């Protein structure tokens, strides 16, 4: 059973782009996060649906020219785990 992830609802998030980083205010926690690539785009392509890391990697490849030294899916998985620890992404069973 592949783990699926769901991004926090857009209603709960306020985005603000700065130069190299993107600010994200998470309303439920009141915490401000600073995101570097690929985190902002990763959260944006997820929309509302629960998705597996492979599906998210596919969406990113379709929209962007991926530049990566490692496996894109591995990296997506690592970032999803990071974001879930911060409450910006939740893990969905089934």
């Amino acid at each position: 059973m592949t783990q699926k992830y769901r991004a926090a609802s857009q209603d709960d998030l306020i985005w603000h782009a700065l130069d190299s980083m993107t600010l994200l205010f998470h309303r439920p926690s009141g915490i401000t996060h600073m995101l570097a690539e690929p985190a902002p785009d990763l959260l944006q392509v997820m929309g509302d649906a629960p998705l597996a890391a492979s599906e998210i990697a596919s969406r990113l490849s379709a929209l962007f020219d991926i530049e990566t030294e490692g496996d894109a899916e591995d990296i997506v998985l690592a970032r999803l785990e990071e974001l879930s620890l911060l409450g910006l992404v939740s893990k969905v069973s089934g």
Partner: protein
Amino acid sequence: MGQMHQISLNIGPAAFRIASTWRQPLDRLTNLYQDYPEPVDQHVDFTVRLEPEKPWRRFVRPSVHIGGDFWLPDAAPLPLAQGLLAAEMGMNLQMALGWRRHLLLHASSVEKDGKALIMTGLSGSGKSTLSAMLAERGWRFMGDEFALLNLDSGEMHPFPRLISLKNEAIAAMQQTVPESRFGPEMKATPKGDIRHLVPPKEAVVRMHEPAKPGLLLFPRFGYEPELRDMGKSEIFVRLTQASTNYVALGEVGFQSLTRFVDAVPTQAMDYQSLEQAEELIESLWSQLA
């Protein structure tokens, strides 16, 4: 414990009651703040309490514990001779922990042409001294410890308390400011030698006049004079570190600070003397729209 003496002080948008077991710190405060308006009514925002560290320290090597509506554990007491400093630190503590009507930045600020120059940085960056110096050179003093950012309008609001001068800065300001505007000498405080300076009268008369932020500076004393651009991300992070209430203000704090960082031109400024700093500042100021 016995009767406590008390006075009230109105500075910018905040009103304080200072209650003290001893008269001396209150007498000194009353003297230095004599040109400030009396609080309009009985309302105060905060009470600061100066009390003996232990009951027997009221008379024997009198030791002042700084307390009040807001307090911190592990606060170090001060000798009674530094009671004035204790009162000022007590007011700082109330603002830092309790003020919610503005976003607070650890910064000094001065105003010219209707715009505010805000200077923020670590202890020793010289922000207090720079504001004291500029206040004597044609700028209106707005504050040396906290800069207050209005959450709706984005303007800076004055909060002109006594200016806290340390070590070499005391002698530097004594060259241009009459002795009557200085508080008592306090040697060997936790922050070194300190003397307080009463802000110029104009600062007090106009202490309810806000100003749009015009320039943000990160000064650094003791380095070859230089001006440097800064990235917005770095500015934002450093300002959250310089704010005592950014997190507590939640979404409103986020909106205020992002708007501020987007709009306000910012420079890092290294300098080795007040004269160099003034030159750099005036050159930047004249280039602003």
